[in-house]
């Protein structure tokens, strides 16, 4: 049997680069970490090129139905690879500064990215499961890779709850298999479409899969691990996992909902809507109560998971389109926000709200960048966050969930308080203590990329709508 490898070339390149970095760490122990960074970035760039080349080969599935070959997958992969590249650059700088850089870190980031991209294109629940495990296991370790206690605590909670959610997901896969006799998304859809009545097993499968994905995208009430893991992980890693996990898990969730469970649309609609409503409310309200910037951003990520879910309640292309745009915008702004935090703080110190007081006096550039990302997170024009929120609300309203859009708008207003309070601190208060932010110019240049993206998408969303529109069709 000939196996065609082009559809998974991006993953192969990523894993290859990861192994090269690991081997380099063993064989050339005194090698410059810059060499590792270069190899990693080359792997990411190669993977991106390989993904772009798949744009024109839109087909059904490849590798015995394990992965989908569609433009949705290409876009999701490119977003993930962009996140990975930014995270690699940030992690290289901040971890070297904190004395925690080892060859394992870029390697694990690459493996996690491979898991994420594979997750985004998987067309079979078994592939989904393995990809989910690859990315989760890498992230557990990255979270605990620092020798600080809070890092260990975060990794432990992440690991335990993650393993728990994996069990839910796997049970859901088993139920889906029991109900339909197949694990391929297309096969499940076929089997379910033929039935007049919905089998109970399929509904159980749907609920269990929803729980499993809920954990991974940190939707409330399955968000318990998020603040601890985000706070404990080295901040550059937090930037990576907050953006990457969400994009990848949502890509897979959209595939499951809009392909495999598409015949059950009437059944999963209310479930997803409920999760969305709870997430936006819980995330927004709890974000206000936080005194630590990383925890605040963690709760904000719970709320943002809810906004993506609001978009996903619209079945078919409009929902996918809106969710994809939201994920792109969210990836840009959350990587940027955590990137700024990683420069203001050092290790576990300097992440509290107080430490950001008077940031404008110390580093106007960082304060300006942070303000931009916060405005975007709050959804204030002219930023990508605003366009993204508008598009998910529109999708929800067009699908008839106007109450959900209303909840979303109210929650946005509540959450805006948290972001604006932080901005007030940065601009209108005197600095406390003697902590100076990281002065290096290179990471600032790196952060200019997501900043430019956030602004550009906010002003000229038409730049990507065409591409996203073409990508909003799932193939199976």
């Amino acid at each position, binding site marked *: *049997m000939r*196996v065609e490898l082009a559809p*998974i070339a991006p*993953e192969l390149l990523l*894993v290859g680069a*990861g*192994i090269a970095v*690991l081997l380099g760490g*063993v064989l050339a*122990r*005194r090698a410059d970490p810059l060499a590792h960074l270069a190899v990693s970035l080359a792997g990411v760039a190669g993977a991106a090129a390989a993904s772009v080349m798949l744009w024109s080969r839109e087909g059904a599935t490849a*590798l*015995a*139905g*394990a*992965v989908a070959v569609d433009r949705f997958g290409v876009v999701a992969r490119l977003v993930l690879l962009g996140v990975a590249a930014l995270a690699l650059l940030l992690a290289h700088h901040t971890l070297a500064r904190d*004395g*925690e850089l*080892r060859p*394992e870190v870029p*390697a*694990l980031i690459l*493996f996690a990215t*491979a*898991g994420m991209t*594979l997750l985004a294109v998987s067309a*079979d629940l*078994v*592939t989904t*499961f*393995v*990809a989910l*495990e*690859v990315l989760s*296991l*890498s992230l*557990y*370790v990255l979270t*605990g*890779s620092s*020798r*600080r*206690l809070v890092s*260990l605590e975060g990794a432990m909670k992440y690991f335990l709850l993650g393993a728990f959610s994996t069990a839910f997901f796997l049970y859901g896969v088993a139920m889906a*298999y*029991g*109900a339909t*006799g197949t694990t391929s998304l297309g096969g499940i859809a076929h089997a379910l479409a033929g039935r007049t009545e919905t*089998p109970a*097993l399929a509904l159980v499968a749907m609920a269990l899969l929803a729980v499993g994905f809920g954990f991974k995208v940190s939707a409330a009430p399955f968000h318990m691990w998020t603040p601890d893991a985000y706070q404990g992980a080295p901040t550059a890693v937090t930037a990576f996992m907050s953006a990457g996990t969400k994009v990848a898990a949502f890509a897979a969730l959209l595939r499951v909902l809009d392909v495999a469970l598409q015949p059950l649309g009437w059944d999963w609609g209310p479930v997803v809507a409920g999760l969305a409503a709870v997430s936006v409310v819980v995330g927004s309200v709890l974000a206000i109560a936080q005194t630590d910037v990383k925890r605040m951003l963690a709760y904000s990520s719970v709320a943002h998971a809810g906004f993506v879910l609001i978009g996903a309640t619209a079945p078919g292309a409009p929902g996918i389109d809106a969710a994809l745009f939201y994920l792109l915008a969210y990836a840009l702004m959350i990587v940027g926000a955590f990137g700024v935090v990683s420069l203001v703080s050092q290790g576990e*110190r300097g992440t509290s709200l107080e430490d950001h007081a008077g940031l404008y006096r110390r580093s106007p550039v960082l304060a300006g960048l942070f303000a931009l990302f916060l405005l975007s997170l709050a959804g204030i024009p002219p930023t990508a966050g605003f366009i993204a929120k508008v598009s998910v609300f529109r999708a929800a309203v067009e699908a008839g969930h106007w109450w959900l859009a209303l909840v979303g708008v109210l929650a946005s207003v509540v959450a805006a308080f948290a972001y604006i309070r932080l901005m007030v601190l940065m601009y209108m208060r005197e600095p406390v203590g003697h902590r100076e932010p990281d002065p290096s110019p290179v990471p600032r240049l790196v952060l200019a990329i997501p900043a430019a993206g956030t602004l550009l998408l906010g002003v000229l969303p038409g730049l990507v709508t065409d591409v996203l529109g073409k990508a909003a069709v799932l193939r199976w």
Partner: protein
Amino acid sequence: MSADQVAFLVLAPISVGAGIAMLLQRNAVHAALLLVVNLVTVGIFYLMLAAPFLFAVQIIVYAGAIMVLFLFVIMLLGVDRAEPLEEPIRFQRTAAVLLGVGILAELVTAVRAGVGFRALGPAAFAETGADTAALARALFRSYVLPFEATSVLLIVAAVAAMVLARRRPAPATAEPEGVVDAEEAAPEEVGA
């Protein structure tokens, strides 16, 4: 009565009995051993159901590797004493019983409805049944990508073990700012 049935009637009580005894056992090593008995009998059931490969995997992986590591840890850490039986979480026992009854009810319903008990195997099993070659076809053709992706998972797990085991926990006392752990600053020395 065929030989298979005789074997089943002998082994089934042993299997169930070992499982129950394991739950009631307070000595960790004895419990582990009873679990081994249970695993082996289940493996023999696989053998009788014409799934010899599953038998081999069950014995090699569960009985041979995982349980030996269990025993290894129990022996090394010396945790072979009776555990306190107080519940750290209130209502835990009640909840466990309720959930157990729920799962039992679910299983009984599922079996009575015959759900998922039709011959729904991977396509590769259709021709020859569940023999080892068919399993190989399923693994290396239908599920070749997940199977290969598992190797990445194993690499990550190995790296994970390395990263976590190499940690020297910093003392819990507040360390002065900007001090880099001397041990970390020194280049890592790995034994040959």
